[in-house]
């Protein structure tokens, strides 16, 4: 029994077809070093020819014990750590954490801070979706969109860099508001970006949306029904592509999302193509939100009155936001000291990854790649 078969032993794979010809089953170890597993995901595949009989994900290669670290840092000190989880959407992570602690402290960020937060978070959603699109298309074999999306993502990162000095792990927000005032020309930069990006998104769509090979590779691949999505706790674009019109920005608005008018794009079939379309439309909706927000950033302070030493009262809080990948939740328990007693992160990638097995069973090896791509996982967040 090899290492790989050991992992698969528990799977109820059903009897292989023992009809006329013996079908040879093949166990393939995909990852942790594989060009299409988006990091260090290891998937063990049981194949009949090219058909997938079952999968098992082996994760934890990037486990850094973020939740343990939190218990040994003060509330403020832990803030930058959350950026390292979903490192392509660091701003969203920071927003979720700051808002959770603000709720625990019972303070509220001032409106100006909230507007800046919304703009940066939506820019980050765009960046995350662009990265997803590029890598997903590359997995399916289209090389070119990757370079186009990276070119345009660069503009977003430039805005981040100008705002807070960092491009990836931004640490843009603080508990109680924002550390930095917007820089001179921030609005102009964002507005220029708003003009710059829509034609680029059209360009991606031109390359892919009606491309026949793309359609064949994504339609009907990785089907997941709304019922299964809910049972598996899958959230974000994957859930919406299955037809559930649910978005925390609308369901339980946070920051200042209730001020803006935007739609929740949904799909009907829950296949890879629908998820692609949903994300593409989401990018346009994000632009709409940014457009509304940047036009009317209110004047005022950017930081609420926050004590020098944060000592939330004893209690616990669960706060979640709509990260680019799905519901990103923070469950924080305070024991009244300066350090959190427990911080639990509800990572969307981790939960979504669980659906992989269901989505690829009975499909082909090539579809596993497409489905991993369409789930949009970030291993930093899966393993924490």
């Amino acid at each position, binding site marked *: 029994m090899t290492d790989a078969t050991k992992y698969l032993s528990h799977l109820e794979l059903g009897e292989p*077809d023992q*009809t*006329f*010809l013996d079908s*040879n089953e093949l166990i393939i170890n995909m990852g942790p070093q594989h060009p299409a597993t988006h990091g260090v995901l290891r998937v063990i595949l049981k194949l009949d020819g090219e058909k997938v009989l079952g999968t098992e994900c082996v994760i934890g290669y990037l486990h850094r014990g973020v939740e343990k670290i939190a218990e040994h840092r003060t509330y403020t000190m832990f803030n930058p750590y959350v950026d390292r989880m979903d490192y392509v959407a660091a701003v969203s992570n920071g927003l979720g954490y700051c808002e959770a602690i603000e709720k625990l402290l019972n303070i509220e960020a001032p409106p100006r801070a909230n507007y800046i937060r919304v703009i940066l978070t939506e820019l980050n959603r765009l960046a995350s979706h662009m990265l997803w699109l590029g890598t997903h298309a590359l997995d399916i074999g289209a090389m070119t969109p990757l370079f186009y999306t990276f070119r345009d993502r660069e503009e977003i990162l430039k805005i981040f860099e100008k705002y807070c000095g960092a491009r990836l792990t931004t640490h843009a927000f603080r508990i109680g508001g924002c550390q930095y005032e917007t820089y001179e020309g921030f609005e102009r930069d964002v507005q220029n970006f708003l003009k710059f990006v829509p034609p680029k998104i059209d360009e991606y769509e031109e390359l892919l949306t009606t491309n026949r090979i793309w359609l064949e590779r994504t339609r009907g691949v990785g089907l997941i029904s709304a019922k299964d999505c809910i049972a598996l706790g899958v959230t974000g674009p994957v859930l919406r592509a299955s037809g559930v019109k649910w978005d925390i920005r609308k369901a339980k608005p946070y920051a200042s999302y209730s001020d803006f008018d935007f739609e929740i794009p949904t799909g009907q079939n829950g296949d890879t193509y629908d998820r692609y379309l949903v994300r593409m439309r989401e990018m346009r909706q994000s632009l709409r939100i940014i457009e509304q927000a940047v036009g009317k950033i209110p004047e005022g302070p950017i930081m609420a009155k926050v004590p020098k030493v944060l000592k939330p009262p004893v209690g616990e809080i669960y706060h979640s936001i709509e990260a680019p990948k799905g519901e990103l939740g923070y469950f924080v328990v305070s024991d009244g000291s300066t350090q959190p007693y427990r911080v639990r992160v509800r990572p969307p990638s981790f939960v979504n990854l669980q659906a992989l097995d269901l989505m690829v069973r009975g499909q082909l090896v090539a579809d596993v790649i497409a489905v991993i791509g369409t789930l949009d996982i970030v291993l930093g967040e899966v393993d924490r």
Partner: protein
Amino acid sequence: MQPVATTFFFYLLSGLAILGGALVITRRNPVHSALALIMTLLAQAGLYLMLYAPFVAGVQIILYAGGIMVLFLFVIMLVNIEKAQKQEQFNKQWLVGIAAAAALGVLFVLVYMKGKALFPERALQLPEQSNTQEIAVLLYGQYMFAFEIASLLLLVAIIGAVVMAKKRI
């Protein structure tokens, strides 16, 4: 076209063919056997070329070396090589096999001895340039019926193979 070193190439190609044939039955690893078989087939194609039958040679390369051997390798690669290697290579029938081979050899020699008159004195100089066209005329003229029957037979074989291999039709 002037033939170049005909005798030399004849013996070279024949030697390769015989060597390949011997390797096919003596190698333990079926993949190696298959490769040796390919060598034999290619040597045969060379012999056909020397007989001024380029069309047959081309067909030999395309069909046998390129097509059928790939399918052979396909099947061989999917069987368990380790198991095959542990098995005894020659079973009890080798005596019978040698007897059959000897009988065939004797038959060949007899045919040659008795029917010497049937063989022409020297090799026929067939026109190389129109070889393909001649074959076509023969196949679709004189031997039309046999040719079509053979294709029907192959069709039946294909259907049979599909029926046997397919799990659900």
